[in-house]
């Protein structure tokens, strides 16, 4: 028998708190994407360089970020670094963990995008007298970002959903943390998590729809 009596009022009363948590979640996701994209562009440059050390750094980062669980990465940033004396707040550990993960996946996205750009572009740019870095910045990078724009929104949605892993590092101000705390206090599990799921869905839907609109506008020929 379904042993549960629904009490929606109690859960709906906590909606303001959950919306505040949603704001923190968005903040973390956006910041981690910005940091992740910057690091990913850097790692792509490392990969294209001739220096074996830089290529090695980029390869290691991508391997670790893509082949270990995000939960593990966030946990290591918080507890592992603390073992070496570096103390990070839950917010920072979550942010750094997600940014680390993002950078790895985005570098692979960019690699795929680079493969879609023909060699002739680089050669034409170099023959105009640009240095390799200028060629990358002015000719290749815009095309690369344009091709990987929609995969990047994929990663953004994933970053939003990954913020829920903050529970293991005592993050209690993001959407999942707030919901979990309310649940521990009132035990309205089904109602609270249903509302949180709807909020997550709305956030990600808004992001994907606005990304598609942006792409239609920005990338018109």
């Amino acid at each position: 028998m379904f042993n549960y009596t629904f009490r929606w009022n109690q859960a709906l009363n906590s909606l303001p708190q959950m919306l505040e948590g949603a704001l923190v979640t968005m903040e973390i996701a956006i910041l981690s994407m910005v940091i992740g994209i910057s690091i990913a562009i850097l790692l792509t440059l490392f990969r294209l360089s001739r220096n074996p050390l830089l290529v090695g750094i980029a390869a290691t980062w991508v391997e670790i970020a893509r082949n270990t669980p995000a939960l593990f990465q966030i946990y290591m940033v918080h507890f592992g670094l603390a073992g070496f004396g570096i103390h990070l707040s839950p917010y920072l550990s979550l942010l750094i963990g997600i940014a680390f993960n993002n950078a790895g996946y985005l570098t692979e996205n960019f690699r795929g995008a680079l493969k879609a750009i023909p060699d002739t572009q680089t050669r034409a740019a170099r023959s105009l007298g640009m240095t390799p870095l200028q060629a990358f910045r002015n000719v290749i990078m815009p095309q690369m970002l344009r091709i990987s724009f929609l995969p990047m929104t994929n990663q953004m949605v994933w970053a939003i959903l990954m913020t829920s892993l903050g529970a293991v590092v005592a993050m209690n101000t993001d959407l999942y943390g707030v919901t979990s705390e309310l649940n521990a206090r009132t035990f309205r599990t089904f109602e609270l998590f249903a509302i949180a799921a709807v909020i997550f869905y709305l956030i990600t839907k808004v992001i994907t729809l606005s990304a598609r609109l942006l792409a239609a506008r920005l990338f018109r020929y």
Partner: protein
Amino acid sequence: MKSALFTAGILAATAIAMPAQADKLDDIIASGTLRCAVVLDFPPMGSRDESNNPIGFDVDYCNDLAAALGVSAEIVETTFPERIPSLMSGRVDVAVASTSDTLERAKTVGFSIPYYAFENAVVAREGIEMASWEDMKGKTVGATAGTYEAIWLEGKVKEWGEGQFRPYQNQADVFLALSQGQLDATVATVEVSEANVKSGNFGGIKIVDKAPMVPDYVALITLREEYGLINYMNLFINQQVRTGRYAELYKKWVGEGEPADLTIPGVYR
């Protein structure tokens, strides 16, 4: 003819008069297994020994309850935030997991009478200067999410208006964070604090003071509408004290001092 009709009528009446559902006490005895939720990172109430078997005061109580019912005990390991959800979802029959009997929880689950009482202590990192529990003001404190101490501590941090509160997912993470310096202080039961300080697993922590909460009475929990089982558990707890088993288990797992008085003077139950 008439007697045949009469017999058919009696049979039909008894069939309708049968109870629509048996209660949980009958279900447990019929199934032959008592599934208890026990928290196993909470020495001395629940922990694991070297061969990874569950041991502890709560584990022994679960075994005693199963023996009294004439069934075998199945220990289902849960974490503190998971005790009540596992009961509500039907994963366990009872939770012998040191659950404090707060009124908020009583809206959802059914509590027995208390079977143990904890005093809480403030545990701090060795480098921090703290004379009493009030020195927690303005510091970074934490506790296990969803526990009585965590709710009290969070309320205090909000009241003081300064300092930070961090809820970790289990007791082990709290003490790890404390010994690493991520937390300045935490509140935990005296038994757990002493066990952890003594074990040396978490270096650099010390017990500072008793926390000013009323003794934390913990009870067995089951579904709210299972009155048969709740009454049985009440009698079981009474018999544990009466026969001296409570004192015996207290001595085995906690050691020094007198086992806590489980009555509140001045009120009947």
